[in-house]
């Protein structure tokens, strides 16, 4: 009986049938996609996990491995992974990070990888955020236009009407100065640290580069006047001395501690104020971002990029398109005050409904700003060297090492030597 080939064959067939029905012999997934996000745990863990589960159900041949990386560590971790030949397949980056990796020839060209019909789903200006040398290197995910948050108690103490917050850049500076003079509390911490002054120029309608992008032109009389204005404010102690070092983070901390009257910020910051500083949150009101003469505001964009090292580029691009589709972006926007990068999702009445809480009001305000917002990140080659020079220029002017004219002339000369 042991040697009976018919019985042996029958047993083998039975085993195979059992294995196949039990799933042991099921085909192994063909693609393992590693997906990196920035600081989404623990608040959005279930959202991302449900996205992944949904995708894996629809694509049995693909498994997604999700890794959440703290914002401060994303650049170093990505570099280390690329250097070690173990880059993720899909990675969340901001515009600056995307462009830097694109300059190093590390990312997939999304203009080529994404079909035209899919590209048409996104706002054209947002799709172009991560454009470098004619190609786009990141699929836009969510965007966060800034709004104005202000402390109504400090406003009242300064004799200002909280019902009429400053609506323009000039009014904003006037209000900040009055608050400092009357209450000794700082009115604002302007976004002038590092290279952010480039955005200040752009919000005032002043160009950074010549139309052919071959020359730096930010040393015109209007540029000098604008820089000199902020330098004079700095010398009058209208904003804190550590503004240039602490930047946006310092401003958010100071506002949450009740030591700052106004803050231009992404609406998602309000959730932090609510949890960390309930008293300040109670006093917080929101308004539209005080626009400069160009009537444009910055629109920081989060994108999903696919490293060239990915062994499953097609699947990675498809997954990135899934994460950023209308339905999924809309669901994400219901969890936190952010905005979708797709046209259809942004049309949802949810964004214009308003409400009673500062977040709900901020959502409606920011939705109204989307039409005039664009990512103001300056994309230039050798950005590290040029930005280091720009940082030195601005700080030299603020600390009196050079006059604003001398500082900007020097920076333009240095930029032009490298552009």
């Amino acid at each position, binding site marked *: 009986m042991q040697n009976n080939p018919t019985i042996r064959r029958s047993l083998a067939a039975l085993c195979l049938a059992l294995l196949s029905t039990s799933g042991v012999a099921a085909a192994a997934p063909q693609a393992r996609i590693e997906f990196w996000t920035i600081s989404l745990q623990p608040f959005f863990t279930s959202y991302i996990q449900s996205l992944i589960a949904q995708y894996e159900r629809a694509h049995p041949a693909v498994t997604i491995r999700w890794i959440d990386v703290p914002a401060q560590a994303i*650049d*170093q971790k990505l*570099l280390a992974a*690329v*250097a070690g030949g173990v880059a993720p397949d899909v990675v969340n980056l901001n515009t600056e990070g995307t462009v*830097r990796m694109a300059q*190093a*020839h*590390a990312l997939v060209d999304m203009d080529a990888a994404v079909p035209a019909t899919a590209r048409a789903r996104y706002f054209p200006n947002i799709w172009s955020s991560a454009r470098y040398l004619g190609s786009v290197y990141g699929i836009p995910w969510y965007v966060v236009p800034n709004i104005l948050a202000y402390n109504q108690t400090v406003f009242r103490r300064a004799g200002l009407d909280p019902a009429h917050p400053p609506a323009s850049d000039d009014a904003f500076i006037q209000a900040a100065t009055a608050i400092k003079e009357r209450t000794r509390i700082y009115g604002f911490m302007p976004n002038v640290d590092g290279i952010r002054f480039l955005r200040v120029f752009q919000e005032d309608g002043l160009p950074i580069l010549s139309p052919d992008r071959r020359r730096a032109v930010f040393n015109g009389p209007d540029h000098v006047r604008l820089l000199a204005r902020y330098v004079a404010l700095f010398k009058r102690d209208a904003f*804190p*001395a*550590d503004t*240039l*070092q602490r930047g946006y983070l310092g401003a958010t901390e100071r506002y949450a501690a009740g*030591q700052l009257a106004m803050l231009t910020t992404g609406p998602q910051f309000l959730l932090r104020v609510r949890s960390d500083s309930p008293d300040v949150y109670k006093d917080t009101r929101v308004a539209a971002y005080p626009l400069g003469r160009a009537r444009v505001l910055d629109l920081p964009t989060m994108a999903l990029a696919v490293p060239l090292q990915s062994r499953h580029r097609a699947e990675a691009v498809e997954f990135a398109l899934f994460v950023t589709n209308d339905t999924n972006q809309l669901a994400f926007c219901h969890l936190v005050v952010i905005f979708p990068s797709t046209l259809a999702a942004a049309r949802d009445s949810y964004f214009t409904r308003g409400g009673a809480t500062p977040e709900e009001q901020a959502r409606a305000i920011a939705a109204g700003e989307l039409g005039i917002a664009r990512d103001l990140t300056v994309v230039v080659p050798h950005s*590290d*060297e040029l930005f*280091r020079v720009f*940082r*030195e220029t601005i*700080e*030299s002017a*603020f*600390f009196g*090492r050079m006059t604003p004219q001398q500082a900007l002339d020097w920076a333009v000369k240095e930029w032009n030597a490298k552009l």
Partner: protein
Amino acid sequence: MERQTLARSLPAARTGRRILTAYLFLLPALLLLGVFTFYPVTFGTALSLFEYDVITPPRFVGLANFRALWTDRYFWIALENSIKYLAVVPVLQGCAIVLAIWVHRSTRGLGWLRAAYYLPVVTSIVVVGILWRWLYDDAGLVNFILLRLGVVGAPVHWLASPGIALYAVMFVTLWKGLGYYMVIYLAGLEAIPPGYAEAAAIDGATAVQQLRHVTLPLLRPSILLATTLSAISALRVFEEVYVMTSGGPVYSTYTMFYYMFDQAFGALHLGYAAALGVVLAAVTIGLSVAGFRLLREGGLSYY
């Protein structure tokens, strides 16, 4: 004859086995040193001759990275700041010696004192940096005390003034390192037999004379070790700067190590960063050699 050969070879075999055993004990440490010290040092030195951005394969450029350093103004700024940072070494060592002598002699609350001064050493440098950022704030404790005492008329911008920031950061290095070097000097003081001080006292030496002519010369090995270690740390300073000033204002706290980090992980110029590392290593080795030459003799025995 055979017996004689055997007698000679037995101790030799025993010695051989003992040497082998010693090396076997050393092997794990040597392996770790090889993987985490010698290999990176060799690799880093070789990398300084290449242009490498992590993503594209390295390209040999010879000494181009070193030549580029010559004309790089930020390199000179960083080098100047790192050299300035060395000023913390004599102050730190002087304070640590005084503290060690005090703690050594003190009988009441000795354990508490030692623990109190050692506490900053075991605290994370990031925590220390954030703590001191608060203390240095315009509305922080340092300015509050100075204003109350009438020492200053307006808050001092400790970390936001180009002329002060480097020294403010240096003070944090001093504050954090004090306990560490105090322990080294305490060990040195414990090793000095009390007979020397007693003999000097019988000969009529004052406390200052004892310190100058007995304690300090006998403490030379500890001074050499602690000075070399703190000079290396001063040249390699990074975390304090990263947490408190990010190299600013106007690059006044931009040190060599910070520039290296910026070049490697900000600009992706890993070859250039490696060249900076080689220069920093050369400066460090030069200083260490000078230190050894200067303080070579002394202590309880020559070494």
